[in-house]
């Protein structure tokens, strides 16, 4: 995984709550055997019409959304299916951080493992972001702070280990493999075997 220290970008705002991973990547795109190229499947059913042409009114198709790397979404973003294709698609499309009042557990874990930063903020901050789409914000991973254009710095929770992995580009599998001795000991000494 590449190092992720901060993301500075304009926001694109999808205020709807409970956006599930079936919307982020519909199931029919899951027959792939690689994570590559999923950006074209992102929000496919909202983004394209029946003929496969972009719907001009859909947010991500609008000119002002071009180049925006921070998605501000409604409460409980990423609920539903565990498909890691969801953060893969967002990253492939160019989204590098998601801000919401709540982010679903599995999606949050999947995002952190791929360098997509999940940012949960209080309702007031979120409300302000929804009302001011397109502002430039900075997601500072090191400080765990979201910096708003008016100078406010809003803290967001991120566990120390995930932060360390993001900042140093460490992937968690390497860390787990280093625990091989402890794992063997556990397997040898546990009182019952599965």
């Amino acid at each position, binding site marked *: 995984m590449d190092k992720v220290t901060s993301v500075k970008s304009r926001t694109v705002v999808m205020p709807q709550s409970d956006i599930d991973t*079936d919307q982020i990547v519909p199931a029919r795109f899951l027959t792939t055997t690689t994570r590559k190229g999923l950006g074209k499947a992102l929000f496919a059913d909202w983004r394209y019409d029946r003929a496969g042409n972009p719907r001009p009114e859909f947010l991500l198709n609008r000119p002002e959304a071009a180049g925006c790397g921070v998605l501000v979404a409604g409460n409980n973003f990423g609920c539903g299916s565990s*498909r890691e294709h969801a953060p893969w698609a967002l990253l492939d499309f160019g989204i590098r951080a998601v801000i919401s009042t709540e982010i679903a557990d599995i999606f949050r874990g999947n995002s952190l493992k791929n360098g997509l930063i999940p940012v949960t903020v209080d309702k007031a901050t979120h409300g302000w972001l929804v009302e001011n789409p397109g502002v430039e914000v900075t997601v500072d991973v090191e400080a765990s702070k979201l910096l708003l254009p008016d100078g406010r710095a809003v803290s967001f929770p991120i566990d120390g280990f995930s932060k360390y992995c993001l900042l140093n580009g460490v992937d968690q599998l390497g860390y*787990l493999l280093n625990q091989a001795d402890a*794992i063997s000991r556990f397997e040898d000494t546990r009182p019952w075997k599965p």
Partner: protein
Amino acid sequence: MSGKSLFQKVWDDHIVVPESADTPAVLYIDLHLTHEVTSPEAFSVLRSRGLKVRRPDLTLATLDHSTPTVPVASLKDLDIVSEPAAAAQIRVMIENCREYGIELLGFESDSRGIVHIIGPELGITQPGKTIVCGDSHTSTHGAFGALAFGIGTTEVGHVLASQCLLQRRPKTLAITVDGKLGAGVTAKDIILAIIGRIGVDGGTGHVIEYRGSAIRALDMEQRMTVCNMSIEAGARAGMIAPDDTTIQYLKNRPMAPKGAAWDAAVARWRQLPSDADASFDREITIDSSTITPMVTFGTNPGMVVPIAEPVPVATDASFRKALTYMGVTENRPMLGMPVNVVFIGSCTNARLSDLREAAGILRGRKVAPSVRMLVVPGSEQVKRAAEREGLHEIFLAAGAEWREAGCSMCLGMNGDVTARGELCVSTSNRNFEGRQGVGARTVLASPLTAAASAIAGTIADPRPLLAH
């Protein structure tokens, strides 16, 4: 000091390295289930790093998600019945399992089926185990008092390579359901009522323990239905303490312990229920005698009403968008809404008892001519058991289709889809936009309600059709 909860006991029993302020716990995984859709990239990572699967003996694979539900006698058939990408994905799974020495319950196996149906049925799902799968409905296995949760593909790779996961301890939520269930009210209605009450994010960050007299009274298949949908409340996992019902279910299953090992396992399982003085981060109580058949009206499982009650009035834009998508009118009940498709299937409701319930309603009756009805058993075993009882004949006589086991129309990626704009009453677990096909509208309900709706051709209350 207060006692330990069921969750805490299972968690503590699997700590390889305890969590600290800086690092998550290293949690040992006793059973890793895997399927064709969320594993290919994980195997690719193993391959690129030259890693082995640490414990192929604790890994079990099946074909279910992108697998067609029409008969596949040989792999050659796949190219006829499946999209090329789906066929390729299935082949990759077969190849990965062969290369890494993982047991695959494939087309030739009489134990193939939906991953969350076969684990319990084989008896490899057991109390006190940690069980994971690259699938959010892994919560199903919690019905046995296992700690079972869905993971992403990166984590599938972690488990393959290390048999462990890095995890922070979740919070606990006790949901007590007391009271007697009315006639025609099922486990599906209980869990839909719970999600309606706590919301689709009500369980985020938590492991739920379902308890109380109504839960104790459920059989294992019904308990699985409840735990299955824990994820629809946002919870990491759902658990039910093992008891005589659990032990009776597991006895003599092919992969359950035998002889002295069985006795030792049962003794261990008996220790798992939460101590009387265990505490939870949150607690909720529900009176099950107030629950009636439930149907969803919106585009997430929390948008749910008792079948005879009016759909609530929209309060915000997301809510209004959902009603528009569904073509549902606020302030009116869902009863009587025209139905195009009825789907009996999925890891929520495709076990033998579910099929029996649906068949009980359909016996001697006909599916409305305007309705396409699909009955898809959850596994090959369920299929054969149903056929031994003649259930398939009831379905076929009523005008329904009887299919091979698989995820089918629960998610539209295996050829079974609901067409754009059509309304499907489904016994599955997600009514998300387009979940069952692009533009498809889904109403979640119990097998009883789904069967009654198939006959009426409109959303119907099953209670008047129950045999007395």
